[in-house]
């Protein structure tokens, strides 16, 4: 099913809208939330399909276990919590009850990295990507706009795999249109340049990377920008292509280096095409409270800092 994301006012409406639309075509689809249904808007799923909705309360481990049980009788659960709890709080359950058993759920982890904003450091997952990567065959997506979020949620469902969807709840932007081809596992080259490749994941970093490429253009630097909306499976073909063309790669992620996207790409390129690289991430820091513009500055997740990183890479 295709749907214009302009129907939605926030990212959360796009991801839940997709879940509701999927449920309208497949009566195996159920939803389990963990006392955050009014935050993500899964209340709309509950309203439409009350018999297929469960609120596990503030008990994420049990939510994952219940989802695994639902899967074992042939149902397809969506589950939701804030990304910090969806990854850290219930990790052994994700690993054993879902992964090891070959059961299946589509896990929405909302407000990744600095998009947790006013909930602060306790709610700010930077390591969720690394954790999910340790579970074999877990698909990880981090779309950069509402249309790709809607489309990729559908594709995560169609993949038949466990999936982790990393998305902010609030705000909205439209980078892609209904006609754009958005494919799970295939990154999108937003700008094609010859001097450097900036590979970015998620809304914050793709936005800043695009702004940075404008600034770089004024400096006479021709930058490639890749929206790596699917972190796993990694689009190695595109990564090799842009690395071969530019010889220099900067990876920008709203997360931690260890086990994250940058390390993943560096690991791949080191085996096939050793490339000079730089990385933008949170390093060894924990999260903190603040609004998005404050946090962007605080962590250096800005176009100016991307430009600095590129200049360092080109020096």
């Amino acid at each position, binding site marked *: 099913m295709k749907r214009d994301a302009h129907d939605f006012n926030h990212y959360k409406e796009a991801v839940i809208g997709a879940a509701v639309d999927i449920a309208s075509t497949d009566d195996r689809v*159920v939803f389990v939330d963990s006392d955050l249904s009014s935050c993500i808007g899964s209340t709309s799923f509950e309203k439409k399909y009350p*018999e*297929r909705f*469960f609120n*596990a*309360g503030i*008990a994420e*481990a*049990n939510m*994952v*276990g*219940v*989802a*695994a*049980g*639902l*899967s*074992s*009788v*042939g*149902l397809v659960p969506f589950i939701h919590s804030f990304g910090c709890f969806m990854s850290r709080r219930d990790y*052994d*359950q994700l690993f*054993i*009850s879902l992964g*090891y*058993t*070959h059961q299946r759920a589509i896990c929405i982890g909302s407000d990744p990295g600095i998009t947790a904003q006013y909930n602060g450091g306790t709610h700010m997952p930077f390591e969720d990507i690394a954790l999910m990567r340790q579970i074999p065959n877990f698909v990880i997506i981090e779309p950069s706009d509402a249309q790709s979020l809607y489309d990729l949620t559908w594709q995560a469902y169609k993949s038949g795999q466990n999936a982790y969807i990393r998305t902010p709840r609030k705000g909205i932007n439209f980078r892609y249109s209904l006609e754009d081809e958005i494919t799970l596992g295939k990154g999108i080259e937003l700008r094609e340049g010859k001097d450097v490749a900036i590979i970015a994941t998620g809304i914050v970093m793709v936005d800043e990377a695009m702004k940075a490429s404008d600034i770089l253009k004024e400096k006479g630097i021709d930058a490639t920008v890749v929206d790596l909306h699917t972190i796993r499976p990694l689009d190695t073909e595109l990564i090799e292509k842009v690395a071969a063309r530019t010889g220099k790669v900067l990876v920008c992620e709203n997360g931690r280096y260890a086990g994250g996207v940058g390390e993943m790409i560096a690991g791949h390129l080191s085996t096939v095409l050793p490339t000079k690289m730089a990385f933008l991430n949170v390093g060894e820091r924990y999260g903190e409270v603040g609004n998005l513009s404050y946090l962007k500055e605080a962590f250096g997740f800005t176009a100016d800092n991307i430009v600095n990183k590129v200049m360092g890479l080109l020096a």
Partner: protein
Amino acid sequence: MDKKRLEEIKEKAFEIRCLTINEISTFGSGHIGGAMSITDLLALLYFDVMNVDPKNPKKEDRDRLVVSKGHAGPAVYSTLALKGYFDKSMLSTLNQGGTNLPSHCDMLKTPGIDFTAGSLGQGFSAAMGIACGNRVKGVDAWTYTIIGDGESQEGQIWEAAEFAGAQKLDKVIAFEDLNGQQLDGYTKDIIPEEAEAVALRWKSFGWSTEVVDGHDIEALKDAIERAKSVENMPHMIVMKTQKSRGYIPGEGIKANHSMPIKKEDAEAAIKALKEREGR
């Protein structure tokens, strides 16, 4: 339950005990204690209570059992073999490389295992999910699950307990194997649990509860029947059991969670058990 039927189930329980002792002895060691304490219940469930078909282990409307204390796998495998899910000769492959009978229950490997367990607490949540799923699908089947008293120290058990109470999962019958021991010793020395207090705790989570002798098959059967008559809540049957029950060298000792059992140990133990049970 009539006397003839009761004797048949007792005979099955005896066979499961013997098979389990021999099974563990083929590997040389294993989780004998927590396996033996649930053999009476397993005999009752598989040979009297549950709607299952060993020739069609995946049939959709089957009753399901999740042994959340997954280290009791050897007893479950003996029961499944006796029921006809697979040949008894497979029991001698326990824990060997490439086996379909790993120490902890694995739904991907063993015909008849309804959910994987081993990381304690997790099977119990999955059992609640199975019950929810059957409700969604309109499948009229019971979900049975067995947890350990040591396992009940896991917080996830109580997350699932409150969830099941809230959801009024009345097609769930759970059993707590209150054998009073855990890996490091007696529960009274680690996290004490008295049967009546355990039952009260479950009651406060919205479950119907009952305390029975877990080795009294007739009492267990009656408790299950009473549970089935109570609507709008899940059911917890707290079983007072003895760890290692039926493997006499392990009875009444502290270190019986996992024990080395040689072939000659098994033979002697089964001989002693036969004498004690008059078989």
